[in-house]
Structures are given as structure tokens and as C-alpha cells.
């Protein structure tokens, strides 16, 4: 059945919909303190039972931090509010929650390290550490330039909860030989790798099956302590175990994205030519290694020069420990931060020189492909910018007023490629991709590709959820990679299939294909970056209370070949809404003691239908050289929307914007009483 029909009739199969005979429900005792020593625990499953440490797998994984790896259950100390300390279980989910109160933990609270900039010089969080710095690298070479214009600024992108509407969840079962888990995920392969590493299981002894996945946005590419406890209990008791995250747990203890500070210094001449950029990128990594915190500071620093030809760049990339849940990827994952820091500096330069912001951008765009001092490869960006400005009617908007423009380089996570399998039997076609859809509707582009490549009716093509028994290898669905990499693997697998049919019958035909049984697998290897360009233009209006309304949101993106238009417009619209969310509403806020003061999905700022406009996607068509001919998309709007919107608000209010989400009290300060 078509995925849409299944969902509109309530016949999805999400992880919480699975009920197995004899199933146990798991609940967690979590730390109420951001930082404390554990003096004793009475009751529950604890680190005495499960003395294991988490592995870092999936998107933005890091290695070599053994002493800072997240314990499955806290041992000796806790590092953030919400950290799993003990687990309890019952045949009834309500009773499992009741049992949480029966576990007694004796804590000795310690002073929490909350602010990432202060954490750089604060006393080390754990004994044996010299400082709280988790990663410390310089990108580019130090330089000196004779610049008549030097501007500086300080930026903060606060942490954001990934907030898929379906929280995390798992069902684990064990038959005495093999662990089977059903899970809401972006990659069954990452989850399997996690179990094998942490629990020391052989790959044959683990099967991971994806359930319908109700959104993920980076969160569900990761491997989490709760999963290990569920599997451990299933193996110990020989009964299935279910754990479903509550929204409160999600906000406290699921890895959030962003949480980055930028301190930038830009050097330019009076004509607006940028001569160099220096600065610090500081990632609020949380209390343990293993999230994406270690990786993301250098990933952001690498992208700092954006679509510009800037010959001097020297960026200090720092990841620092704080008493918060480890940082993870959230749609964009470092890309929006880099664009925010750079585009905000370019707008400030334009204001300083009384120049039009697009004129400054044009002067610094490159006519030739360019490799920046920090390692970012960019195609010729000037022709793109000229076309974007025309297509989005920049001049027309300029006459009207409150609008902002921003552009960016999208760096999709192309490496190391992706897998696909096509199975033809009983006159039907089943497809598995190595990265598993979690709200992007891979089913749509899978149908389009096979209709093109094999000439088959899209109706008979069925996209399948992830299952490690059906597809032995795979990477994951994140980093704007699915149409590029998964799509290319599928194109290659389809071509192999055609060849098989030709070899057997001398000539390919759809009826010959469907009469037989065929199985085609492809690992499309790819080990280079493949960047593309995008731009956004946004108009706003404000009211007398300082409230901002987004009136127009235009995207001009180079998507390569659009495999399926519904896919493209859906990804654009959802991403723009999240970009608007980051700019105006979304943030996880902490008090000085390290307690989170964001208490619900509403506080966390997920946008409502009344907060967003209609969107317009204009295509800049230039096919990629990949088999799928596609380029990246998923994260593009989360990069371009915040920069364009921040500028629009700056123009509308006269207030300099350096922080997301923008504090409403700050916006009110611009409003004159009538």
C-alpha cells in the first residue's frame, strides 16, 4: 500500500505500535543535577549490572576519547540533567514509571560548568583532565594584512531540540541466539554497529529492523544508552523489552543540535573586498565525547569562507565540555552556523561601508572554482549569484523594503557513498537503500528513478524500510545525501539489473524483467566532497509589539536534477519552517546552575502553521555528474533561511542580530510607542 494511504488511515507501524507477548516496559531514573558525585544507589538496574561505555557511531562520529565516553548508566558521577542513572521495568508502562520513584540515589552536587566560553578556562570537569577542551585545532594559516576596515562580532546559535513529533523508541527481543531490534532510525546499519561495539556482539547475532520513523532530523542517526539497556534486559530476561521516550526526556536527554559560539574578525578594504577572516568557533559539546561535538567545530571552521573568494583565513576550532547532554547533529549540523557567522559579518561590512549587501557579495564572489584556505571547495559562485539575484527579483524587493538576502555553499555528507538493492519477484519490485527515510519520502524518488531507468510502472515499485538482513551494508540518511548517494546507488543497481536481463535474453524489456526473479545490489563508493550553491530571500513585517511576521520566503537552489518535484518542494518547505524556527523561536535555554528552563515542545519553539508563510522554490538547473544527476537539498533551507531572515529583521527593526533564537525582549526594545 502507498505510504500516504497507510498513514491517512492510521495503518502506520511505528515502534510504539509494536506489542509482543510477554513484553516488558522500561523506564529510566535520570539525574536531576547537572553535575554531581554519586555516593550510592539503592534499587534498579545500575552500572553495577551494565558496566559498559557507549560507542561513537554514525554522523559526525569521533574516536580516541575512551576516558570521556558516555557510560551506558552513570558510574561515580553524573554530567548533565537527564543522564540515565538506573533503569526499572514492569509489564505495564504506568507501573514502570511508578518504579522510578523506588530507586534511591545519593548525590553530592557540584558546581556546574554551563557557559561554553567560560568552560574554556574553568577547572576541568573530571579528574585526570588538564582542561575542558575536547578538540582544539587551527584551520588555515595565520596572516597579517594591511586592512583599512576591520570589523568584529560575537555570535551565538543556541542549542535546539531536534523534536521529531515521534520521540525515540526501541523494542528489543532475544531468542537465545540472536538479538532483534525494531527501531525508529535514520540508519539500521549505525544501530547495528553500535550494538556490536558496545555489547561485544558478533554481526551475525544482531538484526536491526526499521519501523515507520516519525521524523528524526539528525537525532535518530545516533546510538543511545537506552537502546543498550533495552537489549541487555531482553537478553537477560528472555522477554521482549520496549522503551519509548517521553517528550520531557527528549528535551533533557536527547542530543540537541547547534549550541555554537562564533567570535569573528573580518578584514576588508574600502571597496568592500574581503582581505581575510580570523576567529574562534566554540562548540558547546556537553558532558561526554561521542556526540558530534568534537567533529563539528572543525566542520564549521572549514566552511567559514562560504561562497566567497577569501585568500586569508585562520580559524581556531574549539569543542568544549559543559554540563549538558552531549551535542549531536540537527538538520544542517554545522552548516547553518558557518553561514550565520559569515553572512552576518558580510552584512555588517556592507552597513559599515554604506554599500548594498548584494554588491559586497558580488565583489567577493568567485568567477573560477576556488579552494579556500580552510579547505572548502566552491564552484564559480559569481554566475550563480547573478542569476539568483535576477530570479528572486532582488531589485524589486529592494524598492519595497523589509527584506534580507543570504546565500551559502551546501556541503553534503557524500562520503563514503551509499548502498541500494533491487529485488524483482512476483511481478513486483522492492527497493532498499542504505540510508533509511524518516520523513523525506524516499519512496517518491525511488519510484521516479526506477520508472526512468527500467521503464516500469511506478505503482509496482515498493520502497522498503531498513532491515540489516535484507541489506547487509549501508551508511545512513543524513547530511543532504540521500538523493545524491542513495539515488546514485539505485541508478547503478538498476543499470546492473538491465544488463543481467540483456545478458540472459539478448534484449531488455519490462515484461522479461517482471517475468523473472532478479536481485541487484550496489555499493556506490564516493570519497570526495560535492558542494552546491543556494540562496534565500525573505521579507518580513513587524507589529507594535515587536513581533515579526515572515511574509515571503523564496529559495533559489541548485538541486541538480530534481528526481521528484513533491520531494523537492516538501524538503524545501519543511527546512524553511525549521530555519524560521531557529531564527525566531527555537532554543533550549539553561539557567546559571545548568538546569534547563525549556520545559515543553511549545517552549522549545517548534513552529506552528500560523507562524510560517507559503514558500517559493526556484530551481537553478545544472545536473550533477553523479549517476543520479542530483545535488544536495535536505539541509539547504536550514542554512539559507536564518541568514536571510536575520537580515530582514535587522532592516525592519534597525537592531543588529547576532543571536538565534532572537530574544523577543530585544525585538520589543526597537518598538516606539505610538
Amino acid at each position: 500500500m502507498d505510504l500516504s494511504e497507510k498513514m491517512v488511515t492510521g495503518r502506520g507501524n511505528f515502534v510504539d505500535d509494536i506489542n509482543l507477548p510477554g513484553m516488558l516496559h522500561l523506564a529510566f531514573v535520570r539525574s536531576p543535577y547537572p553535575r554531581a558525585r554519586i555516593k550510592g544507589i539503592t534499587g534498579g538496574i545500575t552500572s553495577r549490572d551494565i558496566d559498559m561505555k557507549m560507542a561513537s557511531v554514525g554522523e559526525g562520529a569521533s574516536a580516541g576519547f575512551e576516558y570521556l565516553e558516555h557510560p551506558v548508566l552513570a558510574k561515580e558521577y553524573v554530567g548533565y540533567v537527564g543522564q540515565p542513572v538506573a533503569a526499572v521495568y514492569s509489564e505495564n508502562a504506568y507501573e514502570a514509571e511508578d518504579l522510578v520513584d523506588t530507586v534511591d540515589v545519593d548525590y553530592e552536587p557540584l558546581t556546574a560548568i554551563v557557559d561554553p566560553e567560560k568552560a574554556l578556562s574553568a577547572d576541568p570537569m573530571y579528574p585526570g583532565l588538564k582542561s575542558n577542551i575536547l578538540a582544539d585545532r587551527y584551520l588555515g594559516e595565520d596572516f597579517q594584512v594591511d586592512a583599512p576596515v576591520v570589523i568584529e562580532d560575537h555570535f551565538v546559535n543556541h542549542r535546539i531540540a531536534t523534536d521529531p513529533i515521534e520521540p525515540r523508541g526501541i523494542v528489543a527481543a532475544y531468542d537465545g541466539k540472536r538479538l532483534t531490534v525494531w527501531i525508529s532510525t535514520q540508519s539500521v546499519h549505525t544501530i547495528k554497529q553500535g550494538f556490536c561495539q558496545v555489547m561485544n556482539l558478533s554481526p551475525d547475532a544482531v538484526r536491526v529492523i526499521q519501523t515507520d520513523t516519525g521524523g528524526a532530523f539528525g537525532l535518530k542517526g545516533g546510538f543511545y544508552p537506552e537502546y543498550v539497556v533495552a537489549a541487555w534486559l531482553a537478553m537477560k530476561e528472555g522477554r521482549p523489552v520496549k522503551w519509548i521516550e517521553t517528550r520531557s526526556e527528549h528535551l533533557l536527554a536527547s542530543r540537541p543540535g547547534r549550541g555554537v559560539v562564533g567570535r569573528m574578525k573580518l578584514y576588508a578594504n574600502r571597496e568592500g573586498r574581503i582581505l581575510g577572516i580570523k576567529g574562534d568557533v566554540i562548540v558547546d559539546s556537553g558532558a561526554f565525547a561521542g556526540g558530534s561535538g568534537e567533529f563539528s567545530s572543525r566542520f564549521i571552521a572549514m566552511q567559514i569562507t562560504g561562497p566567497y573568494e577569501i585568500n586569508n583565513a585562520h580559524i581556531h576550532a574549539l569543542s568544549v565540555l559543559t554540563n549538558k547532554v552531549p551535542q549531536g547533529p540537527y538538520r544542517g549540523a554545522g552548516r547553518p552556523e558557518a553561514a550565520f557567522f559569515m553572512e552576518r559579518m558580510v552584512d555588517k561590512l556592507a552597513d559599515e561601508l554604506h554599500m548594498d549587501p548584494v554588491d559586497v557579495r558580488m565583489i567577493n564572489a568567485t568567477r573560477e572554482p576556488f579552494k579556500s584556505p580552510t579547505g572548502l571547495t566552491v564552484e564559480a559562485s559569481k554566475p550563480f549569484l547573478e542569476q539568483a539575484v535576477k530570479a528572486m527579483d532582488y531589485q524589486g524587493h529592494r524598492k519595497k523594503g523589509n527584506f534580507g538576502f543570504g546565500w551559502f555553499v551546501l556541503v553534503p555528507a557524500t562520503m563514503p557513498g551509499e548502498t541500494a538493492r533491487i529485488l524483482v519477484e512476483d511481478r513486483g519490485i522492492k527497493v532498499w537503500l542504505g540510508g533509511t527515510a524518516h520523513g523525506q519520502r524516499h519512496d517518491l524518488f525511488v519510484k521516479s528513478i526506477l520508472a526512468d531507468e527500467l521503464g516500469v510502472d511506478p505503482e509496482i515499485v515498493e520502497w522498503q524500510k531498513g532491515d540489516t538482513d535484507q541489506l547487509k551494508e549501508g551508511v545512513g540518511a543524513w547530511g543532504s545525501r540521500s538523493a545524491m548517494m542513495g539515488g546514485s546507488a539505485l541508478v547503478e543497481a538498476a543499470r546492473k539489473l538491465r544488463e543481467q536481463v540483456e545478458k540472459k535474453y539478448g534484449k531488455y524489456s519490462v515484461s522479461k524483467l517482471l517475468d523473472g526473479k532478479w536481485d541487484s545490489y550496489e555499493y556506490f563508493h564516493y570519497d570526495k566532497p560535492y558542494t552546491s550553491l543556494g540562496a534565500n530571500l525573505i521579507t518580513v513585517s513587524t507589529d507594535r509589539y515587536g513581533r515579526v511576521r515572515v511574509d515571503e520566503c523564496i529559495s533559489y537552489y541548485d538541486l541538480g536534477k530534481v528526481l521528484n518535484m513533491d520531494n523537492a518542494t516538501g524538503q524545501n518547505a519543511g527546512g524553511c519552517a525549521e530555519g524560521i524556527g531557529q531564527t525566531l523561536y527555537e532554543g533550549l535555554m539553561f539557567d546559571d546552575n545548568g538546569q534547563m528552563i525549556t520545559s515543553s515542545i511549545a517552549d522549545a519553539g517548534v513552529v506552528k502553521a500560523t507562524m510560517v508563510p507559503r514558500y517559493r522554490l526556484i530551481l537553478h538547473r545544472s545536473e550533477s555528474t553523479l549517476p543520479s544527476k542530483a545535488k544536495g537539498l535536505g539541509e539547504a533551507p536550514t542554512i539559507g533561511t536564518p541568514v536571510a531572515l536575520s537580515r530582514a529583521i535587522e532592516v525592519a527593526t534597525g537592531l543588529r542580530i547576532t543571536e538565534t533564537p532572537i530574544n523577543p525582549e530585544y525585538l520589543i526594545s526597537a518598538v516606539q510607542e505610538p
Partner: protein
Amino acid sequence: MTEKEVSITINGETKTAEVEPRMLLVHFIREIAGLTGTHVGCDTTNCGACTVIMDGRAVKSCTILAVQADGKKITTIEGLSKTPGKLHPVQKAFVDKHGLQCGYCTSGMVLTSFWLLNKKKKVSEEEIREAISGNLCRCTGYESIVDSIEEAQRNLEKEGEYTEEEIPVRRGR
């Protein structure tokens, strides 16, 4: 905890069970009636994934106790279409206009839309957005959902499938 007997009519079938007074309606629907199309997304009545129709009104079933729903009539996503094998015009519109991506918020969105279009035949885009502002979607940016509801309005007009007598609509929020 002392259990209490409740009878709730869900999609025309009456389900009677002894439940703890603290049991939420959404858990009665999911666990006791076994209808898993109604979802739980938050703990705080913000997201609307658990929306069902109770005596003609769209309600969030995570904020109502099963004992409060005793004797009431509930329509869930599984019972929206009265013709087996045929989609309700609102469901059909969500399929045709690509009104979903991951599908988790969908049952709540469809039922809120159903309630809205029963309450008012001609709705503006602004009214649609206001009506679904208690239902969160993180995938679509709402555009295709708004399109779906506008399409549903046209479908209902064409097919004359308003069900006002069957499901009396009370005053809104």
C-alpha cells in the same frame, strides 16, 4: 489503584474494560481498543498527534482520562471513512496533495481538518492555519497540509459528504 469500569464507543463499537482511574484516553484507544493510528507525541497537549473526535469535537486524547470518556462516542482515524476500502474525502485530499511526509502527525491533522470542515464549509487559509495551530508538524512546513485541507474542502463540496447530523459539532475552542 482501584479500577473502574468504563464503556467507550470507538468507531461504532463499544469497548468496556476495567481501567485505572489515571489511564489516559489515548492509552485506552491504543492499548485496550488496539487502535494504534492515534499517536503520542508530547506530554503537554501541544503537538496534537493524539487528536480524536469525541462527541463531535476534536480533542487531544492525551489530556482526557479514560474515565472522563465513559459513555462517550469517539471517532479515530481508523473509523473516519464509513465506506470500507474507500478514503474519506479529507483522507483522499491528504494523499492527493502530498499532505504528509513522515506520517506521525497525520492522523491528528486529518481529524482536526475533518472537525474544522464540519464546523464551517468555507474556510480561508488563515482560518485553516489557526485551526491546525494545535497540531505540530516538523516535516512539511505546513504548506502541503494547508493545500490538502483546501482540497478536502473542494472534495466535500463536490461529494456532499458533510456529516453534520451524524457528528454534531459543538462550539470550538
